[in-house]
């Protein structure tokens, strides 16, 4: 398995006592597990504050999980030696949401792309210039653009540069954190086409993080729906998006099509401790049982699982 995530939990201290010891925690991710095989595209969808970006950052090692394990190629990343970590690191890359703040404004694009190649010692030094040229063309920009600085590009072009930078390491998995949400719909389409092509031609797997169910549904084969730190539904895209079983997924799907929704209110704060189902306060089907019982996954059909005890009554 290329990537395995086993019951990761991530807590951030939000209040500190007299000597700087944390006294209160915000639980951004509470026991999330999933696997990604080589070349697979998995979508992670949810609203702001549900912990999806934190999961992404734990996966590439930008955050260390408070509990649980992240395995790259079967190896626990918390236990790797620095050398092993660097070697494996190359294969797990990240593309960030904001193409304006994720590029160094003082670095020419050529240097942006050369740096990861040099760090990981890819190619012979004499071949690197050619490699960089190939990279920039692969993401649909021209070799003339290599001499420019980030401010000379539009948002869509910068996102292409962010993708080229990740590609420079020849990764096996890319974590894409909201890669198209700051872009106009016409530009978004061209980035999605580029990503689809890269996945097909180079067999790179993606963890595609987005708040937009339609985008995730378009690009992924499997999807995880997150709400307040937990996965509430997962399965193949054609299962989950055709007839979602969890009330939250149903709401999300309706809302993404511009239809009215039955839910009230907003997501609770992750700093609150919820004894039962996290969606309880908004769910149109809630009963008293939902408020005090943690929801375990129930199998709907094969990989299709849902964390709601009432799923067969509300489908």
């Amino acid at each position: 398995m290329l990537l395995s995530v086993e019951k990761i939990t991530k807590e951030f201290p939000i209040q500190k006592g007299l000597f700087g010891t944390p006294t209160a925690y915000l639980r951004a991710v509470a026991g999330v597990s999933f696997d990604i095989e080589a070349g697979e595209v998995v979508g992670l969808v949810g609203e702001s504050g549900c912990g999806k970006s934190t999961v992404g950052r734990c996966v590439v090692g930008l955050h260390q999980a408070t509990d649980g394990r992240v395995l790259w190629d079967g190896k626990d990343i918390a236990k790797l030696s620095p050398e092993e970590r660097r070697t494996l690191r190359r294969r797990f890359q990240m593309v960030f949401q904001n193409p304006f703040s994720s590029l160094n404004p003082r670095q020419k694009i050529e240097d942006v792309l050369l740096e990861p190649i040099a760090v990981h010692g890819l190619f012979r030094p004499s071949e690197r210039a050619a490699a960089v040229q190939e990279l920039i063309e692969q993401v649909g920009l021209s070799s003339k653009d290599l001499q420019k600085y980030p401010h000379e590009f539009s948002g869509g072009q910068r996102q292409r540069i962010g993708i080229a930078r990740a590609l420079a390491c020849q990764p096996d998995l890319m974590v894409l954190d909201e890669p198209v949400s700051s872009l106009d719909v016409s530009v978004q389409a061209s980035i999605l086409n580029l990503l689809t092509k890269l996945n097909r031609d180079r067999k790179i797997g993606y963890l595609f993080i987005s708040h937009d169910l339609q985008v995730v549904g378009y690009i992924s084969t499997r999807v995880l729906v997150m709400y307040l730190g937990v996965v509430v539904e997962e399965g193949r895209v054609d299962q989950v998006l055709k007839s979602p079983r969890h009330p939250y997924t149903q709401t999300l799907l309706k809302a993404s099509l511009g239809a009215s929704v039955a839910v009230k209110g907003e997501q609770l704060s992750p700093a609150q401790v919820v004894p039962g189902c996290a969606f309880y306060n908004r769910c149109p089907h809630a009963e008293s049982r939902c408020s005090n019982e943690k929801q375990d996954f129930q199998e709907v059909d094969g990989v299709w699982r849902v964390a709601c005890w009432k799923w067969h009554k509300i489908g």
Partner: protein
Amino acid sequence: MGKVLRGVDLALEEGQTLALVGESGCGKSVTALSVLNLLPQPPMSKTAGRIRFEEREMDGLSELDWRRVRGKEIGIVFQDPVASLNPVFTVGDQVEEALKVHLGLTVAVAKKRTLELLTQVGLPEPERIAGQYPHQLSGGMCQRVMIAMAVACEPKLLIADEPTTALDVTVQAQILDLLFQMTQKSKMAVLLITHDLRIVRNHTDRVVILYAGEVVEEGMPDDIFLHAQHPYTEGLLAAMPTFGQQGKPLTSIEGAVPSPFDTLTACVFADRCPKVQEKCRKEKPLFESEKNGHGVRCFYPSKK
């Protein structure tokens, strides 16, 4: 001198909801600001055209008169609710202010009316919320407060500039439903400005597609969604991903929106148009409407 808008015509009837749709940089927000005489001058100014509101010419109006119109006869909801509210006053105070200034209500009456308004926009425990500051409320709650403020004086026109863009999708749907309900009750006209075609289909009477400061297509939602005629509208619709079309490449619109500093003597979309012809690069197409009000600015519109 740059030109952000290049002759935009809009007409809105009582009780109607008109959606103005376009991508970033096409002039949507500048249109809204022009209608309210809120353009930051300098650097911007309205160089041509006129605005009429209820048969009144608005161009000669003094700033003092404008203040009586804004907030009273024309309400506005901006994109970022947290930034549009004043952080040092409670939200109750801010809703009350509009009532006291525009309608001359006494403090006691204004307080009572504020609570009614907060209830109307679906806020739980209005008494408690009225005493809170914007940073204590979530984005969705702040936007409900903004809507309460905007409709407090029962304006005849409500301008909503990307009212849901900063919000989560499930909250977005609630806010749109709320806006829709409020307008149905009071016959308020709404100018809904958005970049998201998906949200306009269920909530609007007419849709106007703006591109590079020009109206390129206008019609009923069904005209736009089912029988789009302008290549730009077609492109926008085809670019929207849905999970049914996996594997099929999406149609993207190559190139970028022209800059306001470009002099455009031909069709504004010619450089990016997949169906461009010689004529499109030389002459400017006129906006032509059919009988049913479906209009398009294109020499070679799609006929279906």
